[in-house]
Every structure is written in C-alpha cells, then in structure tokens.
C-alpha cells in the first residue's frame, strides 16, 4: 500500500473540480426541486389563485353569473352591502359563531380528551363514537336534528309540548335560531376536537407527568401546568382553524334554517349564496366572499405571527 501526495496547481485551487461538480449538482437539484414542485404549484395557481383573483375582479362588477359580460361598478357592491342591515346581522352571527366555537367545543374537547387519557383500553372505542357525527354528512346530521329534536310533531320539542311544557321550537325563534343551528354544528364538531387534543396530549413526555405527580400535583394542576403547555401549538392551530371555518360557516345554517326566520340566523355564507343563486347578483356575492376571506386572512396572520414569536423565544 503506497500513498502519493501531490501539490495542487493554483488554477485547480481557484476552481477545484469538486466545487464545479458541487455547483452543477446544486443547479441540477434546484431544477429537479422546481420540477417536483411544479404540479402542486400549478394546481394551486389554477385552483386557488386564479379563482381568487377572478372573485376579487368580479366583486367590482355587476356580473350575473350567466355569461361572460359584466360592467365595472366600482365600489357600489361594497357600499350596497354595507348599507344593508342584513349584512351586519350576518357578520354579528359569524362573530357569535366564532366565540361559541372557541369556547364550548374546545372546553368539551379538552375535558373529554383529559378524561380519555386515563382510559387506555376503551379510549379507541370512545374516539370512534365521538367521531361519528363528524364523519356523517351534514345533511344527515341536519335531518336527524330536524326530525328527532326540533320537530314540533314527534321530536323532542313536540314531546315536551304534548306534555304541557310550552317550549317554542328554537329554530323558529328570532333570538334562539342562530344558537340552535350552532348547537347542531358544535355537536358534530366537538368529538373531532377531542380526538385531536387527545392525540396531542399523548405526545407529552411521560417524565414530565410523572415528575409532577411525584411533586404532589393534582389532576387539574397536571393538566394546567404540564399538558396544556405541551399542546399549545395544537390549541393555537385548531383555534385559528376554528376562526377560519366560522367565517365560512354555511352548510348547517342552509340545511336547518336557510338563514331565517327573518335573517335571524343569517351568516355571511348564506348571505352570499342568496345573492349568487337566488338573485343572480354574483358581483355582490363575490364582494361578500372577499369580506369573508378578509377575516380568515386576519386569523392566518395572527397564527403566523404567534408561531414566529414562539420560534424566536
């Protein structure tokens, strides 16, 4: 076995063959990376960016959705919407929706997930049961509630009325309708949150939990000071998703009340839908859609800001 040591030339030192090949390797990899990204990027542009831009453009026109011609109307769609009391009812209901969903299903989900942590044998079964309303189609859930709960003849409401309890069907009540609809949506959603929170809690290092127990912490203290900090990122992400989904709420409102009675359960989704498919005012519907997106964007920015702040800590 022999070793030979050669002194490299000055030119070779300035531009070594390894550096050249590394450079071309990086160039090749960059091209390959872009090529691999291209389908997803193209799909995003076609499915998200193009319709988004077209919606923004349509919001400044009187497009009726029937053809390709439209007139530019400036800000009049927006001024009409802001002059309409129904818009503020819808916006107020969306805000109520956010507040309800950020409290009731989140609290229920955290409580149930905490309880399931100790149920090692049966928690899989419970998770399947809790997920059932979530995996059922909204139309099925809506029919179940309309027929079995809210029905004044044969449902729980009817049963109570037949027994002399003067209960007014909540979907027909101006003050209750939005809560009655949100109740159905929360019923379908909280089980999903339970499963998500349980999954996150199970990632908590067991050493931390055991240390807290050795220190004499009770169940609530362990939850508050061990589990909660560990699932902070999940809580934050789900919170942002709840805010975004709440401003996009549509299906249960449409299926249960169509925004009625007298717009009392109107949300921006149903408000936009009526413009588009009942009045053929797609320009106004697009304007409402833009406003809805604005709130989702705000939530996304807050999430990004909080995430970056956590990273820099």
């Amino acid at each position: 076995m022999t070793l030979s040591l050669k002194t490299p030339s000055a030119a070779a030192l300035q531009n070594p063959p390894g550096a050249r090949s590394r450079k071309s390797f990086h160039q090749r990899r960059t091209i390959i990376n872009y090529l691999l990204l291209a389908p997803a990027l193209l799909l995003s542009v076609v499915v998200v960016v193009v319709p988004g831009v077209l919606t923004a453009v349509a919001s400044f026109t009187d497009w009726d959705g029937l053809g390709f011609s439209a007139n530019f109307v400036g800000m009049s769609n927006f001024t009409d919407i802001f002059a309409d009391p129904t818009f503020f009812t819808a916006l107020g209901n969306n805000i109520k929706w956010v507040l309800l969903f950020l409290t009731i299903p989140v609290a229920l989900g955290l409580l149930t997930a905490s309880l399931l942590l100790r149920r090692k044998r049966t928690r899989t079964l419970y998770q399947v049961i809790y997920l059932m309303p979530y995996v059922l189609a909204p139309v099925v859930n809506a029919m179940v509630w309309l027929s079995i709960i809210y029905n004044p003849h044969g449902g729980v409401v009817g049963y109570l009325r037949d027994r002399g309890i003067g209960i007014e069907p909540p979907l027909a009540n101006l003050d209750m309708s939005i809560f009655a609809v949100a109740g159905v949506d929360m019923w379908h959603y909280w089980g999903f949150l339970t499963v998500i929170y349980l999954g996150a809690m199970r990632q908590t290092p067991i050493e931390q939990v055991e240390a807290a127990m050795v220190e004499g912490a009770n169940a609530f203290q362990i939850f508050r000071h061990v589990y909660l900090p560990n699932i902070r990122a999940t809580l934050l992400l789900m919170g942002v998703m709840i805010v975004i989904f709440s401003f996009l709420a549509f299906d249960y409102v449409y299926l249960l009340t169509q925004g009625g009675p007298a717009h009392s359960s109107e949300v921006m989704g149903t408000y936009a839908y009526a413009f588009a498919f009942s009045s053929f005012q797609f320009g106004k519907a697009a304007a409402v859609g833009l406003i809805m997106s604005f709130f989702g964007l705000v939530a996304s920015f807050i999430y990004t800001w909080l995430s970056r702040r956590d990273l820099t800590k």
Partner: protein
Amino acid sequence: MRIFKNKALAAGAVAAALLLSACGGQTPSAGGKQQIEMWFWGAPPAHQKEMQQVLVDGFNKSQDKYQLKVTFDNAVDKNIDVALAANRGPDVVYGSGPAFAAAYVAKGKLADMTPYSDKYDWKDRILDPMYESGTVDGKLYSLPNSLNNIGVFYNKAVLDKLGVGIPTTTAELNAAMDKAQAAGLYASVTGNKGWKPVNENYASLFLTHAAGGKTVYDALQGTTSWTDPKIAAAIDASKDFYQKGYLAGKDYSNLNFVESMQLLSQGKAPFMFGPSLAFQFATDSFNDKNGNTNDLGFMPFPNIDESLASPNFTLGSTASLSINNASKNKDGAAAVIDFMMTESFSTDMTKTWPGYWAVPLKKFDAAPDEFTGLSKPYVQAMKDMIAGVNEGHYGFFAGTFFPPATATAFDDIDSVWLGKTSTTDFLKTVDKTFAEEKAKGLVPPVPEPK
C-alpha cells in the same frame, strides 16, 4: 419499440376521440335516434316512474327520430344555471318560469322558439296570458308546463266538526280560523321549512287579493311604485294575518308542505294555504287507503278587497320549458315540448300525479269525473282557474313573473311579519331592486288582468 409507441398513441387517440364524441352528445343513440336530454327535479320515485312511462316512453314511441332521456336531479336549478353559463346543459331547459327565462334570454342562452310555435300552433293552443309571458320582444322563449294557483286547501271533516261551512269571504274564513284556534287547533298549517321562497306564495297571495292584479301589473310595468298605498296595505294585511297565527302560528318555520298536508289530514287544522301544486304532496295523506280522499277540498282564496272580481286567482306556473341555445338538437327539443303541451299528456300525468301537470291549454275538455282520487278535485280546480284566467281575474305569482332579485326581495316578507323591518322600508327595498332589474331588461312581459 417505435411501432409499439405509435400503436399506443393511435389507440389513445381513438379512445380520446370516442370519449370526446360521447361527451358531445351528438352520437346517435341505440337504434340510430338522436338523444334529447332533459334535466328534471328529483321527484319521488313513484312520480319518476310515472314520468318515465308517460313522457319518456310515450315520446320515444310516438316517433322514430329522437330518443328522450330525463335525468332527475335534486339540485336541478343550480346545475342548469351553471351548465347554461358554460354553454352546456340539456336540450330541453326546465326552468322556474318566465322571469327565469328572461334573465337567460338577455344572455343569449335560450333559443327562439317562435318558428316552432308556428310549426306546432302553440299560440293557438296555449292560454294567451301564459303564452305571452314566455315572450321577449315578441319572440317566444319559454312555455309553462303547468298552471298554478295559490289557494286554500281545506279538510271538510274538520270544518264539519267545527260546525262551519266552506268559507266564501275573508270574514267567514277568519271566523273559522278563530274557532279552530279556540278548539286548540292550528288556524291553518303551512311553512317554509327547507325552502325560504315559500314566502313568495303568501306575498303573492296578499298582493292578488288585497292590492289586486291590476295594481301589481302597473308596478311590473313601472307605472306604479312598489310603495303604492294599495301594495303597502296588502303587505300590512299579510302581517296582520301572520300575527294572528293564521299562518301555522309559531310553527311557520318548522313545517313544510308535506308535513302540513299530514297535519291537515290528521285534523290538526281546517285549512292549509298554499299552491295548487301541493296536491302532489297530499296523495300520501289523503287517499282511499286512509278513507279520507273526499275530505280534501281546494278553493280560491277569498278577496280581502271585496271590490275585486271574484273568484280571483294568483296566476303562476310550476315550471317553464325552453330550448337550450347551445343544443344541437333544437328540433328534437321542440318535439318534446310539443308532446308535453297536449291534453292527452296532461290527463295521463294527472291521473297519478295531481298538482304538477295542468298544461295551460285554452281548450281543456277533460271532465273531473273521468279522474279518481285527488286528481278529481285538482282537475276541477284547474278548470276553474282556466275559466278565471280567460276572464282576466288574476294576479301574479312572484316566483313566476317577478324578476329574480325582486322575487328574492319578497322572500324577506317574514321580516315584516316578525317586526324586524317596517312595511315602508321593505317596499322601498323592493322598489329599488325592481328599478335596477327593470333597467337591465329583466322584467318578463306580463299579461294585463281585467
């Protein structure tokens, strides 16, 4: 390898060509017939079967050039909107009425049917007001498939039990409803559960019977404002009616027509106010098996303004039929529509499906006694309506004759009933919406009542 590639390419091209030609819908179907497509709402299975037998099989046997295919679709309105916007969709366009057609005519989506009208003598066969309503600038673009009237369904057994006769005036009607409420019954049953545009029925009803068809006609012409005192009085009358509990009390939002018919048959109310098309929802509740077929009756709503001609009708259609301007088989589509504009088609369909097929013919000779079950009172109701329309005693159903945004504005009448807005503000919104649509030429021609 190269040969293999070429063969693969050729096979791919052939497959693509076959696929594309199939998508185009122009390939003659089995038997060399051209396929005509029609999309229809997702009717119940029994009604779909009836339509298959009478319309599809009947039409296909009646000639050897075309093959009709009907697709039942619960979201037919929205799907037709989207398909027409993209210059696609069925050959025969099933729409919601002349107002629907006018919006599409403005965009060139519907074909001019005037040449077919001349060929098949539709103008001579169809009731003048209904024919005229389907025209735009003198050209025909749609024909209604059936007449519809907003009236009063009543249960004779319940009226007997209450000791009241069939009311002929609003005073008698209100007295009967008061008596029903005192007996612990609903004054009437109806509701907009699942379909908010049901509100248009009651807006139209009060416009016809309180403001009068002529006032509404003037408003539709733009010669009278929608804030006219007569129209305001009609909306106020509807509010009073609702607040007295005469529209299903507090359950208006919790009931639909099917449930209302069930309650009516169970004796929970003497009346159900609604469109004559609701006969189709009554067949499960009022039938020979239950022994109560003869309990159900239908009559025109009595006038609130007694100076109006009586009986008075809220003229409407259940749907409209047009030809897609993008269709490659317009002749075939016209042949299908012509098949549907006949008395034989109307009577065959009505025998088992009362409520939806009162073809608006000038001459409708079928006698109610030729029918059984609920078809009998339905045919009588439609014959009465044809007579009334020929005399010019009618108002207008918003869903048929009002332009789309104006009709949608009338959906908000429940905001007036529930005190969320005033009659004045409600009508100002209607007036503004109508003015915008009139400026765009979206108001269909409406027949002038007498």
